[in-house]
């Protein structure tokens, strides 16, 4: 159902500091509509901070974030959802007291219209809206992500991998045009990682959503991304197609402290087979 076309995201010269600590130093990159862009870099490079700037949780001290050419730097975090921006979190941020279904429904919040009075009465419009939402979630999201067996379980009971999947489901319920995924496969086993990779590609192809992801799993990054940007100590050090970045000596140096791309690949493979 490619009804919503993907949005283009442009980050321009974004700078962020906490006290004296410069977390982002004039970073610029773009995520093209309908593509998968990966943001990589060593621990503490500023990737999550960049996501927080994009989703409006942090206010950058300089620079702009543009969605389809429109400057959204001043838009409140809560209003960015209505513009079609959705994200998942590095440390899963599900609502543990709620069921999977309620978590997913929550994602739609910004697109629903029920007001307080209608909510108290729950007649007519409010009830219809809820029913339509439920039906759509069942049809488009629960089936798609293969989570129908857990829909009424409280999320606190689920495995880590399933929780990540529910987070993706909730993000999809936000009717995103761009999806920010912060380490979508961290802590997952091989099989779960492959499932997630498939879902991400399906979301891109079938829903036409632009995807920007932070990921440490280089295998996944190389496999599914169209474009890669590399951060190190808050600055962008490389950008390009996956294979370009892979062979960039700066990138290898950032990861290893040496300029040998082959060493990087060896280490990455070693990590992967250890996992």
């Amino acid at each position, binding site marked *: 159902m490619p009804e919503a076309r993907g949005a283009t995201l442009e980050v321009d010269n974004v700078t962020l500091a906490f006290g004296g600590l410069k977390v982002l130093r004039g970073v610029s990159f773009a995520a093209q509509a309908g593509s998968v862009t990966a943001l990589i870099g060593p621990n503490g490079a500023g990737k*999550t901070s960049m996501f*927080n700037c994009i989703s409006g*949780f942090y206010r950058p001290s300089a620079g702009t974030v543009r969605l389809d050419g429109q400057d959204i730097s001043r838009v409140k975090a809560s209003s960015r959802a209505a513009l079609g921006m959705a994200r998942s*979190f*590095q*440390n899963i*941020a599900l609502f543990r007291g709620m069921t999977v279904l309620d978590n997913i429904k929550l994602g739609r919040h910004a697109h629903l219209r029920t007001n307080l009075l209608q909510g108290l009465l729950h007649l007519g419009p409010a009830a219809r809206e809820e029913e339509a939402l439920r039906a759509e979630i069942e049809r488009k999201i629960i089936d798609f992500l293969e989570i129908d067996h857990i829909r009424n379980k409280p999320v606190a009971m689920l495995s880590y991998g399933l929780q990540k999947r529910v987070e993706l489901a909730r993000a999809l319920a936000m009717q995103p045009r761009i999806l920010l995924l912060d380490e979508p496969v961290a802590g997952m086993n091989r099989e779960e990682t492959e499932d997630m990779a498939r879902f991400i590609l399906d979301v891109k192809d079938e829903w036409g959503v632009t995807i920007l992801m932070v990921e440490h799993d280089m295998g996944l990054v190389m496999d599914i991304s169209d474009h890669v940007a590399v951060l190190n100590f808050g600055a962008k050090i490389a950008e390009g197609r996956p294979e370009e970045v892979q062979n960039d000596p700066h990138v290898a140096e950032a990861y290893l402290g040496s300029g040998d791309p082959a060493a990087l690949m060896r280490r990455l493979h070693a990590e992967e087979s250890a996992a």
Partner: protein
Amino acid sequence: MSDDLLFFTEVTLAGLGSGALLALTALSFVLIYKATRVINLAVGETLMLGGYLFLAFAAGMGLPVWAALPLAIAGGGVLGAIVERGLIRPMLGKSPISVFMVTVGLGSVLVGLVEMLWGTDPRTLPGFIANTPVFIGEAYVSRKIVVAFIAAALVIGVFLALFRFWRGGVALRATASDQAAAYSCGINVPGVFSIAWIIGCATAAGTGVLLGAIGGISPSMGIFGLSALVVVIVGGLDSILGALIGGLGLGLIQAWTGSYLGGEYQSVVTFGLLIVTLVIRPYGLFGTHEIERL
């Protein structure tokens, strides 16, 4: 000295006296909060219990003051130990609000017990401080207030020294700044919890005796704890300095409003101050700000 100025000085001195008691009570809050991250709203009721214990030992059993006072303080300490072991430790890891409400419930239990044993009528403590006033320059101050001020100042001084130099004080500071790290340094963290509650409640009980000596005791005197709560919120829950400055400050402000605007304004001014502080500096004037991350 003109009459106006004299009056102002007298009011100010009285304010400093009650401010010292507020500071002492606030210290009890801070001590317990620093170690266990619990706001003990039963401090006010512990204070009241201290007053009644003193009454029981001094008037009921006819013990001399020098015996009754330590016994009352020890009674507070025992209460602290029981509460910490029996109620607070099982609540470890629960939401701060739940633990806070436990102390609210505890306060109610203490009020009920005191009412059951001693009735609801206010009582006066057997006088152990002479009634002759003290003159500081021309200004008149009640001797009780002077004694309370000096006692409070002494106790606070001892606390500050202990906190700095005594091993237990260092352990307490370590626990306050990082519980896990304190554990791994071999500090007996549960022990620190107990000690903090014992000392905190003992302090409150002692303050209750001083307060009772000045104004008598009644089951509802725990309300004083609310003023001390305002002090710690304004000063910063984890700041000893904040408790001292906040206590003296609030004592002064209450005395001034009481004398110049009228007693009915005291609570508005006190709580207005609280709200203003919360809105401007949610973590108090000297408290540490905790940041949240995604």
